[in-house]
């Protein structure tokens, strides 16, 4: 090719690229958080502690002494509760010990780089440090935090997603929680005694597992919970925590997708679709079934996206759909509506 012909061809190619990009819609620029390290914590057990009340005799010679006694009582109780809460949080964080050496290199940037190619929204890019998005680009800022359940079976992403529409200065914030799906049964059943394996095999036909049933099963199988926890830990830790890194990237991509597609059309439009009623939805936290009151926004084969009473988004695994005939999206790839955020 002559050197003189290369320049027009390059210009034509560049024009074609730009035309192609604008036809696909505005792009998405994702800003890397300032903090390098990814925050992790141990998930505290659900239900919370049941503090006890009881009567109290106040030694008080007069009204002033009585009031001082009440104030002192209040301070002692508050101090005791704060100390207990701190102790519980520290105890919960011990679940992270096996993973800390493996997560040292799993930074915010590494996570985003792994997540962006998985976005259902095409055209996403990482914003270089110190730069601003293009005029027609959406700006997404993500502040993620991850947690591991005490049984090691579930990963939880709690993320604050801030989105700025092209041409606007205000940012819309959405809190998104994503729960990982229960680990595949064969990964857990191999290490369980026969009675537990039979229960796992019948799980598809059984009534939904409730916390009562799960606790009873754990009590019957004795060492089963410890075994299940160590199998789950091995699953996440193996091969330099490959499964954990893959899963967290998929969860982050899903959180960004969910936040973008559930944004109101304009900054002043209410986020929650008024016509969708609030119901109590059951979902899975590991093998335990729990509930959330919310509006059903999207559903896949084995996952739902809800808007909770707090107005946050919750994506959680559910019992797989038994309707084999109807098409449904597996895993995190729910039908979230429009593939492009509304402008």
């Amino acid at each position: 090719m002559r050197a003189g012909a290369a320049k027009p061809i390059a210009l034509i190619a560049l024009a074609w690229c730009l035309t192609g990009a604008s036809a696909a819609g505005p792009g998405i620029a994702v800003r890397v958080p300032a903090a390098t390290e990814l925050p992790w914590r141990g998930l505290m057990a659900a239900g919370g502690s049941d503090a006890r009340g009881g009567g109290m005799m106040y030694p008080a010679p007069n009204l002033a002494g009585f009031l001082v006694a009440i104030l002192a009582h209040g301070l002692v109780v508050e101090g005791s509760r704060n100390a207990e809460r701190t102790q519980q949080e520290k105890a919960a964080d011990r679940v992270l010990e096996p993973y800390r050496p493996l997560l040292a290199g799993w930074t915010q940037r590494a996570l985003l780089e792994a997540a962006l190619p998985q976005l259902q929204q095409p055209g996403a890019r990482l914003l270089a440090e110190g730069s601003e998005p293009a005029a027609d680009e959406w700006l997404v800022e993500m502040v993620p935090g991850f947690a591991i359940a005490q049984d090691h079976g579930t990963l939880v992403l709690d993320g604050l997603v801030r989105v700025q529409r092209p041409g606007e200065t205000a940012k819309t914030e959405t809190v998104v929680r994503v729960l990982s799906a229960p680990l595949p049964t064969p990964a857990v059943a191999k290490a369980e005694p026969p009675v537990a394996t039979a229960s796992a095999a019948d799980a598809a036909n059984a009534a939904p597992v409730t916390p009562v049933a799960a606790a009873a099963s754990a009590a019957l199988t004795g060492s089963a919970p410890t075994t299940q926890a160590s199998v789950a830990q091995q699953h996440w830790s193996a091969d330099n925590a490959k499964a954990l890194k893959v899963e967290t990237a998929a969860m982050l991509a899903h959180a960004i997708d969910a936040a973008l597609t559930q944004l109101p059309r304009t900054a002043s439009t209410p986020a929650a679709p008024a016509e969708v009623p609030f119901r109590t939805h059951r979902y899975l936290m590991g093998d335990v079934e729990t509930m959330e009151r919310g509006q059903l926004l999207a559903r896949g084969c084995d996952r739902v996206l809800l808007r909770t009473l707090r107005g946050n988004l919750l994506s959680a695994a559910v019992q797989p759909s038994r309707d084999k005939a109807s098409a449904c999206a597996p895993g995190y790839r729910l039908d979230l509506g429009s593939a492009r955020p509304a402008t």
Partner: protein
Amino acid sequence: MLLRSASAVLACVILLAGCAGPVQTPVSLSAGYAAAKPGRVGVAVSELPKPDTYFPGAGCLLCMATASAANSSLTSHVRTLNADELKPLKQDLAKLLRDQGLDVVVLEEPLKMDAFPARSGAAPNQARQDFSALRDKHRIDRLLVVHFSELGFTRPYSAYIATGDARATLQGSGSLVNLANHNLDWYEPISVSRAAEGKWDEPPKYPGLSNAYFQVIELGMDAVKKPFQKK
């Protein structure tokens, strides 16, 4: 003087001990219950309680007033909630029993538990109230009755001081009564409570606690239905 004081103390102790009845312990449903053809079973639920706030430990009058005032916003919110989510329980229980081949009739009217007289001299594992009127009226041999006594939010107090966060609560009991002799074929106390996920103190709508409210309703219904589900 000393003898008079001692007598007064003894009289108080006897009176208070007499007032305290033994607590009914759970009675498990026998494994082959449905196969034993227990006869026609009536399914009933008591009048649903109005959601409210409860402050155990705030025993004195001034303590109760202080706790009520400190949690007035929470009380206002709980009174906007209702117990409608419990309404399907009766039909769900009836279906579970019919699926096991039992002859079931649903008593549509909520039971007013106060209307049933107490059974004097009720032995352990016997119903404390007399439901004979229902046997004659509905021609039933057994009565499956679920009674919810408390629904709403509870916050523990030690006199004037809150000792814990508010939690959602559902209290009650489920009984399967043999109306021929008022023996309990099954009895299960219902005591479910849940804390809010994260912060609880989020006036005016308390979304975290409200979510816990709906959770305890579902968990309570699960607990009642579990013994009657096919294994």
